[in-house]
């Protein structure tokens, strides 16, 4: 009797191992097992929480040096071909500041002299090309591409976490950076009303600062240098370390339980 039970347990262990090979059958049945299992074992983004979904799936991290140019494509689908698109900064408090917006007819953002934000809506590729020239440390933070919808909240296409580090880029232009800094300082005092928020308002000051032909100085393609290192280590952790650790933990748990059970069943 006891032996039979033990055999049953061992068989179960064998089956639990075997089960791994059969998952594709279950996964073809949409929305049945799949989300539940995710919730049971891992704290993964679940499709019913839009915020985590956005952060995990769409947020991309870019690291640039001061003076470089951030450039990226935000893809959209045809139903938004004729909508206006905007580039926004999201502050830590969740406040959204629109930095550039495309014009309905020209499909580009209006480029004021000295402006650093530039959008171009390429309807053939179904993408908005975003360029942000001469990035500064104070520009670090979250940005997003959005579609302006006439009767509802804007639709977020993708978001980027920008980190700007000190130190000059590959082609330093010391003279220009100096004028840039000098231009920035005098505009600061008048904005004392927004002093409590000065971190977030500083990029706006830069845009509206006096004309300074820095936009033409930093070569567009040269500054782009996204570092994927953190991304790679993250995928490494998720794809290798987590399964290995989980596997070891689960196996040791199983063997502890089995050991306990066998001990119990062989007791006189």
């Amino acid at each position, binding site marked *: 009797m006891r032996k039979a039970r033990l055999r049953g347990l061992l068989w*179960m262990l064998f089956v*639990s191992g075997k089960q791994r090979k059969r998952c594709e059958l279950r996964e073809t049945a949409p929305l049945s097992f799949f989300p539940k299992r995710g919730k049971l074992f891992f704290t993964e983004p679940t499709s019913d929480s839009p915020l985590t979904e956005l952060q995990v799936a769409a947020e991309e991290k870019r690291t640039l040096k001061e003076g470089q140019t951030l450039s990226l494509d935000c893809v959209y689908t045809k139903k938004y071909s004729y909508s206006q698109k905007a580039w926004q900064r999201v502050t830590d408090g969740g406040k959204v500041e629109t930095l550039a917006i495309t014009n309905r007819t020209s499909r580009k953002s209006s480029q004021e002299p000295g402006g650093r934000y530039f959008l171009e809506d390429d309807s053939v590729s179904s993408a908005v090309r975003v360029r942000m020239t001469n990035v500064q440390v104070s520009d670090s933070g979250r940005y997003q591409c959005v579609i302006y919808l006439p009767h509802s909240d804007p639709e977020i296409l993708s978001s980027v976490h920008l980190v700007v580090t000190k130190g000059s880029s590959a082609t330093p232009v010391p003279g220009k950076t100096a004028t840039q800094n000098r231009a920035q300082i005098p505009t600061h005092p008048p904005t004392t009303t927004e002093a409590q928020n000065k971190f977030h308002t500083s990029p706006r000051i830069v845009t509206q600062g006096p004309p300074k032909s820095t936009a033409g100085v930093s070569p567009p393609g040269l500054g782009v240098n996204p570092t994927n290192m953190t991304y790679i280590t993250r995928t490494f952790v998720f794809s290798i370390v987590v399964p290995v650790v989980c596997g070891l933990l689960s196996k040791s748990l199983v063997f502890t339980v089995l050991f306990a059970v066998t001990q119990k*069943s062989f007791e006189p």
Partner: protein
Amino acid sequence: MSCCCSLLAWALLTLLGLGAARENPNCCGPIVPRREWRALASECHQSLKSPMRYVVVSHTVGSPCDTPASCLKQVHNVQSYHMRNLGWCDVGYNFLIGEDGLVYEGRGWNRQGAHAGSAWNPKSIGISFMGNYTERAPPLRALRAAQSLLACGVARGALTPNYEVKGHRDVQDTLSPGDRLYEIIQTWPHYRD
């Protein structure tokens, strides 16, 4: 007492089995590898940053095929058209689906395809049904093959768990993937227009 214990152990083992099943990257349906359809060597170098958020579904508009032998030939034809006539570095799609219900490996999960335009190619996996689906729908076995391929992509970490399926016409000016197939993919749980 020991009965109770063994029940507990059973429950635990079942749960662990389920958990493990989800994480295993090898749980994919059969994918016909490139060497099996005698693919020309790829000259592509652009890689994709996994996991991908988007999947773009298209059709080839070429001849359909409903046996492994004819599909093998058809994949080969598509590749040779893309490489020899269009001068591309490889067949444009990441995967091709035959009416034989099999998935044929194109550029695979890790290399950037040429199927949805310069902005969408680096951000999506392109899967193409071999045939023209303007007037008729692909057989269920082909649709099942595509769905299980996508589930496999999630299991391998090549697609995000909340990946989005788009029709080729959602991202470019084209009739692809054909009216009938487009109607079908719009009912898929991961489809977002």
